[in-house]
């Protein structure tokens, strides 16, 4: 494989990685699985790069590989973990548009702006589940609150952020 092609692949993969992760998150129940599957899928893409005809076709091609790996991973964890049915996961995969990168980019910017509107305390809370396992439980212990009440607050904050992102996209014209 020549160096130009390698560099081209890296550029495409890096540019579309957030979209591939978001796509996998639609199909899989945890971030652990998403990361594992993306690792495996990236190796497959690398090995099969010769099959890719042009850069425009990268996202649909990568999504086929990612989807295949995700279905396999879903089956392997279905026995001991709560997962969506195979039929539903297949429908979710089919409904996803071929390319979503621009939308994700706009949403990310809108989310950053919406997060700034939260108090530091609420911002910390809403980002806590991604930072360290058990952090929410520790916070509950520390503040003498029930974990359940924190999850409820977290749910309300996520809903607030979702609505804020929608509003930002409308007012700032980021809707693709």
């Amino acid at each position, binding site marked *: 494989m020549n160096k130009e092609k390698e560099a081209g692949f890296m550029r495409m993969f890096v540019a579309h990685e957030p979209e591939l992760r978001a796509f996998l998150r639609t199909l899989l129940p945890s*971030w652990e699985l998403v*990361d594992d599957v993306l690792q495996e899928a990236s190796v497959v893409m690398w090995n099969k790069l010769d099959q890719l005809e042009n850069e425009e076709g990268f996202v649909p091609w990568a999504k086929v590989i990612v989807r295949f790996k995700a279905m396999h991973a879903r089956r392997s964890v279905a026995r001991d973990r709560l997962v969506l049915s195979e039929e539903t996961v297949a429908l979710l995969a089919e409904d996803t548009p071929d390319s979503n990168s621009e939308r994700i980019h706009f949403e990310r910017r809108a*989310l950053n702006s919406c*997060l700034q*509107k939260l108090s530091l305390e609420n911002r910390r809370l809403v980002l806590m589940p*991604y*930072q360290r396992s058990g952090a929410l439980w520790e916070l509950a212990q520390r503040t003498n609150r029930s974990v359940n009440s924190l999850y409820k607050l977290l749910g309300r904050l*996520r809903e607030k952020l979702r609505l804020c992102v929608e509003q930002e996209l409308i007012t700032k014209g980021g809707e693709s």
Partner: protein
Amino acid sequence: MKDEHFGDLCNRYFLGTISAEEMAELDCGLKGSQDLRVKFAAEARLDTNLRDAASSFEKKQGVGISKGPSRPKWQWAMGAAAALLLIALVVSFFYPERKTEHIARIADLHGAVTWIADGEQAEGRLEIGNELTGGTLEVSSLDSWAELVFEDGSSVWVSGPAVVTISDGGAGKMIRLREGDLSLDVSPQPEGKPMRVITPSAEAVVLGTQFNVSASPLSTSLTVNEGNVQVTRLADGSVQEVKADHRVIAALEHESPFQASPRGDSVRIWKSEFPRDVRQGSLGSGAEGRPNELHAEAHLFRGDHGETIDPVLLYTAVVGPRGRKMQPVLLSKGARFRIRGHLDQPYQVDFGFGTHHARGGLSGKFSVKRKLKPDQDGWFDVELALEDFVRMRSRFVESPAGHELVWLWVQTHRKDVGLSLSSVDLLSPESE
């Protein structure tokens, strides 16, 4: 399915708290409605962006929090080029709209002080008057310090070695002290936006007051000179209101008592005790019949006031009165230090100490150089009167007499000559 209920199910799904019944309900809803599937995909994108934002937030907060599973296979497969490209992309995404508003300025600095603004990867040169955005200040050595002044006049003295991250956002000012000493004079803060000072073991909420904080990775000591400070011990969430002339110690482990108490009457003599009073250096067992020794640690000095010089290697050991029952140690006219330790060979040694005003706030740093000649076994025993020390800055008080001793450092330049301390005593003028 109602929107609100669907949203609730999605939250539970993405937060990993969904029950079997709820999963079945969600599955059924998604299977039967393309509209819900579109909404579900939007929730997945939100979850993705939140996760990325969390990673960015961690970096801006300057805390190293582990972030889920690593990606060894991906990294191995793609190699260094991929990592570089990924970093470039991640940086461009994480800091797309970095604010450049100034929140504070450097009012004074001396010694090995570096500044890394949020989102920057390079250390910035600092000069008095420099305006700062949010970022991290590193004060690398004991004879170094910096004073930051926020836009509202609140000032923060940072005495090295210390690492401090500052920010001033919608929720108010935040100062994260990873280790080191701060002396704060906080102007009244806007209602609902207190200043927060966070250390590895405590969080202080401040509305306007004067207080000192000393933090190590394991414990935080906070002394209030004026006003009130609310301190939370992070280990268990318990809270103490600390009023003027009181102090509290919050340890990382929550078995230690956490109770604000009066500072107590000051004392005028002090004898170091290891490991209690160790502030910098590595503690080793003393040779047979001798006390433990505090060995000097190596670090680099790179120049003052933004002027970069060839790095100078320094070897420093630092001690300071510490401990729960420790009363403030006041320096009195005619007092002297007796310092005992070890050197491999005759060498010039720098001695220095820092003081606080009796009612708080850094009042000065004082230093003196001495050529020491150890005995045939390498031991030295030297006495230095307070009057031998020279203030390191004209703005500092002329004499340390009447001020509180915070720490004392002993240092050699450029060469490792085996410097270690076995004891430091503060002797009163009357002592023989």
